[in-house]
C-alpha cells in the first residue's frame, strides 16, 4: 500500500465534503446530495487514478562513478511504464541527502522515459539509497500518493580532490622522485597488501591474512618502489569545516601519490589501509575517507611508521599523532590552508 498525504486544498476539500454530506442528510435535499456525490466522486477518482498511475512503474537511477563532494554530477533516471495505459504527472523524489525531485509529465503505455537530474553539490559520505520514492498528485490537487520502490544502492561521495602541488613543494621529500632515491633492492619482500581478484594464490601472505582477517598478498620489490604514508589525524574534536578540509587534503594526497605510481598507505584513527598502488587501491582509500568521522584517540595506530615517506595531515593542535610528527616528511595543518 502506498502512502497518501492530503494537500492543503485536499484537507479543505475533505472538510467541505463532510459538511456538505451532513447538510444533505440534514435537509434531505437531493440537489445537495447531487453536489455531495460529485465531491465524493472527485475524491474517489483522485485516489483511484493516482493509485493506478503509480502501478507498474519501474524506475532505474544511474550515475557515473566516482562522485566527488561539491562537484556537480548527473543522475540518469529511467521511468518504465509497464501498464497498458499511460501514466501522467509522476515525480521521483530524491532522498534528503540529494534533495529535489524529477518530474515527468507523461510516460506512454509500455514505454520508458529518461530524464537527467543535475546534482549540484553533495557532501562526502556514504549514502544508502534503500528506496526510491515516487510521487503523483494526478489528476487533481487534493492529495499526493507516494510509493517506495526498492533500490538498494550505495552512493559513495568521495572527498573533494584539490590541487595539492603547492603543498608538496614545501615538504622536504627525502624519498621523493625528485631525488630518485630507491628505497629497496629488487626481489625483496616489500609489503603485504590486500588480495585483488585474479592474483596468483601462491603470493598469499597467510600470516598477514590471519592478522588482518582478510586475504593479503605479498608484494615483492621491483627495485624502484616508492612508499608514501598519508596520516590523517581524525582524533580530536575540531571544527567541522576544517576537518572536511583535512579529509579533502588527505584524499588529494592519496590521489596524487597513486597517480605518481607510489605505494600509498593511509593511516587514520580507526582505519588503516596498507600499502598498495593503482586505481583500485586509491578507491579503497577514498572509500574510507568518504565515510571518515572524528573519533577519540583510542584505536589510533601511532606506532606504525617504519618505512617510506610520511605526510601527516592535521586539523588541530591536540594530536594523537604528535609524537610521530618528527618522523614525517611533512605536516600539513588544514587550519591554515
Amino acid at each position, binding site marked *: *500500500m*502506498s*502512502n*497518501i498525504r492530503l494537500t492543503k*486544498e485536499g484537507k*479543505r*476539500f475533505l472538510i*467541505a465534503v463532510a459538511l*456538505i454530506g451532513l*447538510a*444533505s*442528510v*440534514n*435537509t*434531505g*435535499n*437531493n*440537489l*445537495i*446530495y*447531487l*453536489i*455531495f*456525490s*460529485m*465531491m*465524493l*466522486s*472527485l475524491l*474517489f*477518482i483522485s485516489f483511484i*487514478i493516482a493509485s493506478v498511475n503509480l502501478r507498474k512503474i519501474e524506475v532505474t537511477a544511474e550515475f557515473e562513478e566516482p562522485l566527488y563532494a561539491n562537484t556537480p554530477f548527473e543522475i540518469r533516471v529511467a521511468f518504465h511504464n509497464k501498464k497498458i495505459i*499511460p501514466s*501522467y*504527472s509522476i*515525480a521521483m523524489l530524491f532522498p534528503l541527502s540529494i534533495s529535489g525531485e524529477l*518530474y515527468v*509529465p*507523461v510516460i506512454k503505455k509500455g514505454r520508458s522515459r529518461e530524464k537527467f537530474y543535475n546534482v549540484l553539490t553533495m557532501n562526502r559520505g556514504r549514502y544508502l539509497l534503500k*528506496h526510491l520514492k515516487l510521487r503523483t*498528485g*494526478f*489528476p*487533481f*490537487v487534493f492529495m499526493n500518493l*507516494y510509493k*517506495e520502490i*526498492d533500490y*538498494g544502492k550505495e552512493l559513495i561521495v568521495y572527498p573533494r580532490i584539490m590541487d595539492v602541488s603547492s603543498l608538496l613543494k614545501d615538504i622536504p621529500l627525502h624519498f621523493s622522485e625528485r631525488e630518485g632515491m630507491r628505497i629497496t633492492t629488487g626481489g625483496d619482500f616489500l609489503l603485504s597488501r590486500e588480495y585483488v581478484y585474479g592474483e596468483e594464490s601462491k603470493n598469499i601472505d597467510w600470516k598477514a591474512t590471519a592478522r588482518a582477517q582478510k586475504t593479503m598478498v605479498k608484494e615483492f620489490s621491483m627495485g624502484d618502489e616508492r612508499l608514501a604514508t598519508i596520516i590523517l589525524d581524525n582524533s580530536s574534536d575540531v571544527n567541522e569545516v576544517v576537518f572536511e578540509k583535512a579529509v579533502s587534503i588527505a584524499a588529494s594526497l592519496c590521489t596524487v601519490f597513486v597517480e605518481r605510481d607510489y605505494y600509498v598507505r593511509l593511516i587514520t584513527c580507526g582505519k588503516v589501509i596498507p600499502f598498495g598502488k593503482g586505481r583500485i587501491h586509491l578507491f579503497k582509500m577514498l572509500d574510507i575517507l568518504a565515510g571518515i568521522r572524528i573519533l577519540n584517540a583510542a584505536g589510533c595506530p601511532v606506532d606504525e611508521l617504519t618505512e617510506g615517506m610520511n605526510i601527516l595531515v592535521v586539523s588541530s593542535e591536540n594530536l594523537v599523532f604528535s609524537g610521530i610528527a618528527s618522523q614525517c616528511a611533512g605536516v600539513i595543518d588544514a587550519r591554515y590552508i
Partner: protein
Amino acid sequence: MPGTYKLFTALVALIGSVSLVSTGEINPLFSVIGAGLLWGYYRALRSYPSLPKWAVGTLTSTTFIIFLINLYINRDIFISVAQMTLIFQTIKSFDIKDPWDPLQVFFMSLLQLLMASELTTTIYFGIIFVVFVIFFVISIVLGHFVKEGQGTFRPYRKPTVLITIITIILTIAFFVSLPRFRSSLWGQSFSKGIKTTGFSEKVDFGSFEELKLDETVVMRMLISPDAGGPHYLRGMTFDYFDTSAWHDTLKHTRRMFRTSDDFNIDVPADAKKYEAEIYLEPIDTDVIFIFKRPYKIDAPGFFMRSDNAGSFYMKQKASKRFFYKLYSIDGYYYDNMDIDSYLQFPDNILSVKKMTEGITANSADNLKKTEKIKNYLISNYTYSLSAGKPSDGSNAIEYFLLKSKKGYCEHFATTMVLMLRSINIPARLVTGFLSSQRNDIGNYYLVRQSDAHSWVEAFIDGRWMIFDPTPQADISRKPPLLLFLDMMRLNWNRYIVGFSSYDQKQAANYLLGFSTIKIGLPAIPYVNIFFAVLVMLILFFIYRSKRNGYVHSKYADISAEYIRLRKMVSRYGGKITPSSTTNDVLREAVNAGRFNTEEIKRFIGCYRFLRFSGRSDKVLLKDFLRSAKALKKI
C-alpha cells in the same frame, strides 16, 4: 499563469454566479455587481495588472459592511451570504495573481452552487450543475498541471476528457446509491414552496381569481388506466359559508399509520381500479390530492391524517416535492356524520332560496333537483375570470346570481351548494384541481395553479355525489416543444429532485433482481447492507494502514510479527529494551521458559534472513509465518 487556466477559472466563476442568479432569489443590484467578474476576467486574460493589495482589502471590507446592512434589511442570512459571494467573485476576478488563486475561485463557485441548490429545484439548476461539473473537473486537472509547473495542456486533453466523463458517471452512481432518509434530521431545506390558496381551513371567496391566471405547474400525474381527462383531484371540503369565506369547521381528523409500505384505507376495493402517481410541487398546503376514491396510499412519512369527508393530509406541509401513489376505485363516500352541518345557510341570502324553489318546482326527487340546478347554472351563466365585485354592498353570491351572471368555479360551486342547502339537500364545497392538459410526449397530466377548481358534493340517496356546475372553459394546447420541456422537467423532478429510498429499492430491483434481503423481520434494505460492508472495508483498510505506519514496505508484515513477539516475551517477564537485538530476544524468550525453544529459534532465524538478507524466499516466509502462528498460541 497559462491563459487556458485563466479562461477555465473565469468559466467556473461565471457558472457559480449564474447558478445563484438563476434562482431568481437574488436582488438584481447584486446580480449586476456579480456580472462585473466578466470585466475582471477580461483584464486577467489580457494580462492586465491585478488590483493593488490595499484596493482588494478596502473592497473586501466594504463587502462585509454591505453584507451586514443587507442582513439587517432583509433578515435572511442565507440570501445575504449568497449575495456576498457574488461580490467576492467579482473582487477576486480582479485579483488573480498566483496559481493558487483559481482554487479559491473554484471553492467559492462550489459554495455558490450549493446555495443555489437550496434556493431552487428547477431543471435549470440541473443544466448548470452538469456544465459546472465539466468545467470544474477540467479546471482542477489543469490546476494540477499548473501546480507541477506545466505551461501547456495539449498533451493532457484526452485524459482530462476521460476523467470528466468518469466523474459524471461516478456522480450518478454515488447519487443513486447514497442512503436516503425518509425525513430530514433536525434541519429543513431552504427551498420555498409555491404560494397557493383554497386548501386551508378558511378560504376567502374570490381568492381563486388570482390562481386562475397563474400558469405555475403544481402537479404532474400519471394515471393507469387512463380513459382520458379531465380528472378531478379532490383536495378538501368546506361546510360553513359566511358570505365572504368558506370554512372547514368540522376538523374531525384522525391519524393513519403506515402498514408495511402503504397507508391502507378501509374501502371495499371491488370496483374498477386505478393507479395514479402524483408528483406534487411544494405548494403551501398539507392536503394530499386524491384521484377518485383511494383504498391505498403509498406516501412518505410515518403517518398521515384523514377526516370524515374523505380528505387526506400530510404530517406537515412539504418543503420539497412530494411524491405519492394512489390506488383508487370508482366509488362514493357514504359518511353521514355531521350531516346537519352541510345544511348551514347564511341568513342574508334569501333570494337564493326563492330562485331555487322556482328552478326545482317540477322535480320529484333530490337527484333530479340537483341536476336541474346544475344545468340551470351551466346554461344561464357564463364562465369569466373578470367576475367583478358588487358596488352596492350586496353579497357576492347575489351579485353573481342576479346581476353579473358571470364568474368562475368558485361562484358556480358556492351558488350551487347554497341552492341545494336552501331546499334541504346537504351539500359541500370541494376544492382541488381539474387536470385537463395531457402531455402526450410523457403520457402524463400537467396540473397548473390555473387548474385550481371547486365543485360540489351533494348527499343524495345516502351517498355523496359529485356535481360540477361550472361551464367548460377553453383549453389552450401548448406547443410540442413546451410539452417536451415539461416532460424533461417531470423526469428531473421525478428522478433527481424527488429521488428517494423507494427509488433506490426500485433501482436495485431492476439491477439485481431483488430489492430487499429478508432476514426475519424487519426486511433489511440491501443498500444499507452494501454501505455497512463498504464502511467496514474502509475501516479495515484504515486500520491496516495505521498498523503498518501508512507505508507498507515488503518488510512491514515480517517486522510486525517480530514486534509482536518482542511484546510477548516482555509480557512473560523477558527483559526487552528498545536496543535489544534478535539474540537478546532469543535469549530472553528461552529464559522465560514459556516458548518452544526450537520454534523460537526457527522464528528468529527466519526473521533475520527475511528482514536483513535483502532476498526473498517464499518457503522461508511460509516457515516464518507458521512459527509466528505457533508462537501466538502460547
